[in-house]
């Protein structure tokens, strides 16, 4: 995955990530997704790697349109 613009990507506001290089992403923080093969994702709302809809937490899926999606402010 390439560096993404979170507005264009329409990531859910509750999608969070820690990239392997220590940066926390999501929420108020910018998204970089520098190396998605080692980036850990979680949902703040469900407190884990499964979303509130029980689907996987994945930046390819935690975007506008998903049932549990919440827009960033």
């Amino acid at each position, binding site marked *: *995955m*390439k*560096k993404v613009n979170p507005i264009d990507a*329409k990531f859910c*506001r*509750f999608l*969070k990530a*820690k*990239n*392997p*290089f*220590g*940066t*926390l992403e999501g*929420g*108020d923080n*910018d998204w*970089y997704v*520098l*190396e*998605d*093969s*080692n*980036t*850990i*994702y*979680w949902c*703040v*709302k*469900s*407190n*884990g*790697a*499964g979303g*509130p*809809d*029980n*689907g*996987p*937490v*994945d930046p*390819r*899926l935690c*975007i*506008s*349109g*998903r*049932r*549990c*999606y919440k827009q960033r402010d």
Partner: protein
Amino acid sequence: MDTKKIKLPYGIPGHNLGEIERDIPVTEPPAWPINEKLKVVGKPVKRYDALAKVTGKAKFTADMQLSGMLYAKFFRSNTPKAKIKSINTNKAKDFPGVYAVEVMKSDEGELPEVKFVGQPLAAVAASSLAIAEEAAKLIEVEYDYEDFVVDVEEAQRSEAPIVHAVAISAQTDGGDVGVTHDGSQTNGNIVGPSTGSFFGGPRGSLDEGFKEADIIVERVYRTQVHTHVPLETHGVVVDWKPGNMTVYASTQSTAGVRNEMAEYFGISKSEVRVISEFTGGGFGAKHSAGVFGPMAAKLSKATGRPVWLMLDRKEEHMAEGYRPNSIHYLKIGAKKNGNLTAIQQRSHGTAGIALGAGVGRIAQVLYECPNFSTEQYDVYTNAGPGAAWRAPGNAQGAFGFEQAIDEIAEKLGMDPVSYRDIIDKSEIRKVERQQGAEKFGWSRRKAAGSDSGAIKKGFGMAQSTWPRFVTLDSTAEVRLMQGGAVEIRSSVQDMGTGTKTILGQVVAEELGIPVDYVTVLIGDTYFPAGPASGGSVATGSITPPARNAAYKAKLELLEQVAKKLKSDPANLTIEDAKIFDKTDGSKAISFKDALQGMRTSQIITNASRSDDYGGFKQEWGLAYGDLGSVQFAEVTVDTETGFVKVDKIVAAHSCGRPLNIAHVKSQINGGVIQGLSFALYEYRVMDKQTGFMMNANVDQYKLPYSMEIPEIESIVIEDYSGTSSTDAYGIGEPANIATAVAIANAVYNAIGVRIYEIPITPDKVLKALNKI
């Protein structure tokens, strides 16, 4: 921003040290010389909290005791995959001493599906931990059981149960979700591949590269699931009073926990205060509020009391992260002159129900190679989620890659160190190889398997790289107070690495005072925002602001003192806690007297991390250069029993300007010990029939004990790059990457047979030797 030109040390002392001229912000201090000319920085200053820790006075989150505090315990699933028909908490609620029971539910009231053994489903708050534990056992769940898979290879089969068998539907008003991930339209549990990286990624043509190659090495390497095992488990104490939630957290990121708690409950960040005075290790897994944070807060809100919710070791193993495993295919081509012509990488690994099981960037960037491709796949399994683990992916990736490089060297008839001299363009690793080989006695190494007798000696080495990253949202505040107190404040936390002490050293050096004059107040989100402690970013992020804030405070103080001494402030300096006029030594005052005479009771200054002098590779904080390391391992292998004993590790490292040589060496020791444990001991055992982790303890989950820890000699090489006012970087990640593969290479040198899977347990050695 106004700038000024200064000259800074640049290069490696004793090798190529020079100077570089940089434009820096006018508000920042002049360059420090190299460490040997400094009084406090670089020296082995004793940890601020050493006495408190060794005497037990240090209060970790688990030690918190607040008035009226309740103790909470999770109720967790005992099946790896099921839908929940119902949860009955009545008996638990009625148990004497229980104050509240909370069930995990979505905002819409939906119960979660169970996807791994140990998944938290509810929690009980009671007057004691024992009561909470007893009451939690009374919670009754009616499951609709489903098929599951915990093995990474079985999970890849087409008939394997789908871990996330949930159709993700679009909202009724439309939307952008174009993928339905129910397993049927994708590759089952396989996600990916990830084919690129910001730091490397695909390039050239593999076909062309392999055509050019004179030799090719093609292997599959396997690494195991490796849990974190910090001394202090995950957990929090939450005290939620109206308008103010206080969270005592064992965390690597006070700000991260604060932000998540605010987001979860939809409250202002200013209503949440996160405090982490001491954290007993994290190793990458303690960045979030977790499930325990919001749960403890809900229980606190429900009861009006503080709630303690720390996990036990079993919960820690099952549910709070681990280093994912890897099945790592590598095909590498090289010419007779050693130059690499092509690298093909493909990996599969599992982070359980989560993502992030790649093997990192080592193969992509360690050596120049014009033709490269990578495919890194995640494989979902019904196990708890993985987490970042000290250099995520890199230790796994290095285990394969640096063995393959050794194999190429052997095929070319070259010594492994000499071969890396040819293919490695890094100047710092060149120096590390030279000094490391000399200290280690690399010349003792003989041909693989040539030692006679049953007990064989072996010598191996390996290398690694780690990027220099900084978090720009890093601020420090310095206070000078009448009465003589000097404080530095930041929300950055110290998870045991020594952050408190290096901040004290930096401020003391800048102010020309002893380090014990400085009080370090960190780990509290009421202080200015500090970085997370992860990715080896904290030191490079927060120490420049600390120095710069101290410099500003010093200028203000000297301005005031100059009026009293009738001096030009520019002529004043501070040395050994004495302020004096460089042009007239009779004009002098002690530092403490100067503070006593300030016109206000406090001077308060702050500074945030400025951009690197000379700029970044990327504007968001990727610095130029890298953190290289080279490690050497000496092992003894008993070919009758298969036991491997690591006798010695020499670890040569760089972290820019080392701020506290004792702390750096301590970090290297820790990284090496964890690397050794990765190589020889630790591995998670999952029961395929039940989905349980069978060794979720510290008895059968083998960690090294003292007699299994070798002599560790570290070489810390100063490497100045003139990038900030401290020019310092972290060492946490680099210390851990190369150890396991250096040991694997040494085992090969001992027995003459390569072992492609860790941990290298006796059975693997005997199998490799065809003895079982």
